[in-house]
């Protein structure tokens, strides 16, 4: 029993209710002040000609354009050691001890990167309920590339800068009175409580530069599924470097706060048994291999059911549905969370690659559904929306596909789709 308790993670929660820029980073009574010069110094480097910071809060008439990644501030103590392993801390297993998190805050990067499809966050208006980052107090990092730097340099420097900022901000709360203390048990192999055991299968996109996700600082590309503790997510074991398909994006923030993991932790009826991270290969043969291997792993783990998520567009449907079929063949109930791509009028087939044996699916809505977003007073990230060739603050019309995380199949959102009655 003692060993099990020690294997868990204590999450020390500080609720953020306001944010601004100031002289020194501090956290007091829910208000986060970001020391501008100290924060800029954490990001500045040879890849950038300039780095700029902006703040925005829920309800502001602000549009963030060209959103890249978002990170929840967290810290295990001064100096940033222990969080974001392989990137900030040493590449050693995390997920034990205690971690301070600033709930309700995020560090967001926005600007141009190659292959990044333009993602939008509106902090108010009809798109606000569609993004988890519309509900957070955001420190937005804007940047200009140095002439002699490559875009790959910029990408790597941004990723390091964001996690450094995230650790720096949470350090300001180390001595603050927490709003909540949450004990997160480590999954065990025990079946003694009689509850059905559920694995969480999270597919990570592995499509090369600007479309990759890092586990302990490494891409899963070319590898096989791997099992880690869900508690490792809270310490930033998974960091996103994937900038395609805005609505389907799973940023670092959503890995840190993994909604399926959270829903299973909260369930009285089901046991969170394991987290299985899987690469999304680009070719069919390897999609089949990874799927069969993931199902075997789940069989070995003795789970009764699995919930699956993907990242990316149509081809990534196969990474979910092939696994669902292989799991069902192993006698494991499979539920896939998928986004629909049913065309503007919603009459097209919803999936590119449907399952052939499994049937149970949750919908995060139709990607092609169009929305009109009102003009905003201010924009962060980019001055123009290249996709529409319009100023970022204009009234715009675009598909849900462009709204950051609107359909993330990690399952944070309320958006779904149903037949018109």
């Amino acid at each position: 029993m003692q060993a099990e308790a020690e294997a868990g993670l204590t999450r020390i929660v500080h609720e953020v209710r306001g944010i601004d820029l100031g002289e020194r980073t501090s956290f007091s009574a829910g208000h986060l002040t970001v020391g501008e010069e100290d924060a800029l110094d954490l990001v500045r480097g040879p890849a950038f000609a300039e780095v700029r910071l902006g703040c925005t809060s829920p309800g502001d008439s602000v549009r963030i354009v060209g959103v890249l990644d978002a990170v929840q501030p967290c810290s295990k103590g001064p100096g940033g050691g222990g969080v974001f392993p392989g990137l900030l801390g040493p590449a050693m297993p995390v997920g034990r001890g205690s971690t301070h998190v600033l709930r309700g805050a995020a560090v967001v990067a926005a600007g141009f990167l190659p292959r990044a499809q333009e993602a939008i966050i509106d902090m108010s208006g009809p798109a606000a309920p569609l993004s988890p980052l519309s509900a957070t107090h955001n420190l937005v990092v804007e940047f200009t590339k140095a002439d002699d730097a490559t875009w790959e340099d910029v990408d790597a420097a941004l990723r390091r800068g964001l996690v450094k900022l995230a650790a720096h901000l949470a350090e300001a709360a180390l001595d603050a009175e927490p709003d909540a203390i949450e004990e997160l048990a480590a999954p065990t192999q025990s079946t003694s409580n009689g509850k059905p055991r559920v694995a969480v299968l999270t597919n990570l996109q592995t499509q090369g530069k600007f479309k990759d996700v890092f586990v302990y600082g490494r891409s899963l590309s070319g590898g096989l599924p791997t099992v880690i503790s869900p508690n490792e997510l809270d310490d930033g074991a998974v960091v996103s470097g994937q900038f395609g398909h805005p609505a389907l994006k799973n940023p670092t923030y959503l890995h840190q706060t993994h909604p399926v993991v959270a829903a299973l932790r909260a369930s009285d009826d089901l046991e969170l048994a394991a987290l299985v991270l899987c690469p999304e290969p680009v070719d069919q043969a390897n999609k089949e291999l990874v799927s069969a291997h993931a199902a075997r792993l789940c069989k070995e783990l003795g789970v009764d059911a699995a919930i699956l998520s993907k990242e990316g567009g149509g081809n990534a449907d196969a990474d979910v549905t092939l696994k669902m079929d292989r799991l069902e063949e192993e006698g494991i109930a499979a539920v896939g969370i998928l986004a629909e791509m049913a065309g503007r009028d919603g009459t097209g087939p919803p999936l590119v690659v449907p399952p052939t044996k499994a049937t149970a699916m949750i919908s995060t809505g139709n990607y092609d559904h169009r929305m009109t977003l009102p003009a905003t007073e201010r924009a962060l990230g980019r001055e123009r929306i290249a996709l529409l060739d319009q100023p970022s603050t204009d009234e715009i019309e675009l598909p849900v596909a462009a709204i950051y995380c609107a359909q993330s199949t990690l399952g944070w959102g309320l958006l779904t789709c149903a037949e018109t009655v």
Partner: protein
Amino acid sequence: MRIVHYVNQFFAGMGGEDSAGTGPELRDGATGPGRKLASLLGDEHEIIATAICGDDYAAGHPEFAADLVVQARQQGAEMVMAGPSFTSGRYGMACARIAAAASEAGLPALASMHPDNPGLGEAAGTTVVESGLTARQMKDSLERFAAAAGKIASGEELTAQDGRIGPVARTNRMAQSNAAERAVALVLTRLGGDTEASEIPLPDFDQVTPAGPVADVTDALIALVTEGGFVPAGNPDRLESARATKWVRHSLEGLDSAESGSFESVHGGFSTQWANADPNRILPLDIARELEREGAIGRLHGEYLGTTGNGTTVADARRFGMEWAAELRQQNIQAVILTAT
């Protein structure tokens, strides 16, 4: 009501595949199956004209539908009927487009086809009733078609009981709980023995039988087609990098190779760095020309067809496929090399 009835070149008695490139025309009175349809419609309704178009032409020129509807209106049409097209894909697509164009123009409209007809996906915004599988079921199909037309003419909505088929629109809405919580609930439902519960219906995909091998490739006309976002430098057609709604065609005449600077890829699903360094990696024009010179293939077609396959809806992809097939058949292409990325 005064009705214009649409049939393809075959049912108009103009010939089969050899006449599939025939352009649109309007002919007075009922033709082919329209004669039987006219008698089933009774005295209250009259087929005043027959609209006709070749299947390949209709697939390659979507504007034929709006043109024919304008002509039908000029003739005083009050309603448009199209088909039955059974399981014939290009004919079904043409019927769906005619009916959709008429509906958009504010005329009551109705198409008839089998539920497996891939043209059904094009019928958004209009009404379709079920036909039999083949023209052997012409009589039953026409009876159902005429009965449905009578209902539409009297302003009634068709239901499944009338044989109504067609795409059902799915629309976005907000659920009571988040997707993760709904997934957890669905696990419990599923473990409770329910194998039906799902928020997404399984789409019903058609299976395509591949064409037989080309008898003599040294005598064949070969086309290059691609979904690799391959465009002339500068992307003059503004082909989309994702969620493409169109395809493009460009000449390859006089070109020995797809040179960097002349062509590029705008595909949003992969890094185009290596494609742009040598665009032959997407459209293998250099090797195809070599094979042509060696006599390993008969001849290379003078243009390529291309789109972007990245987040494309299945409905759009299916439409591109039917349009390409019609276009390539009209050009007497025996085989294509489709490079996928």
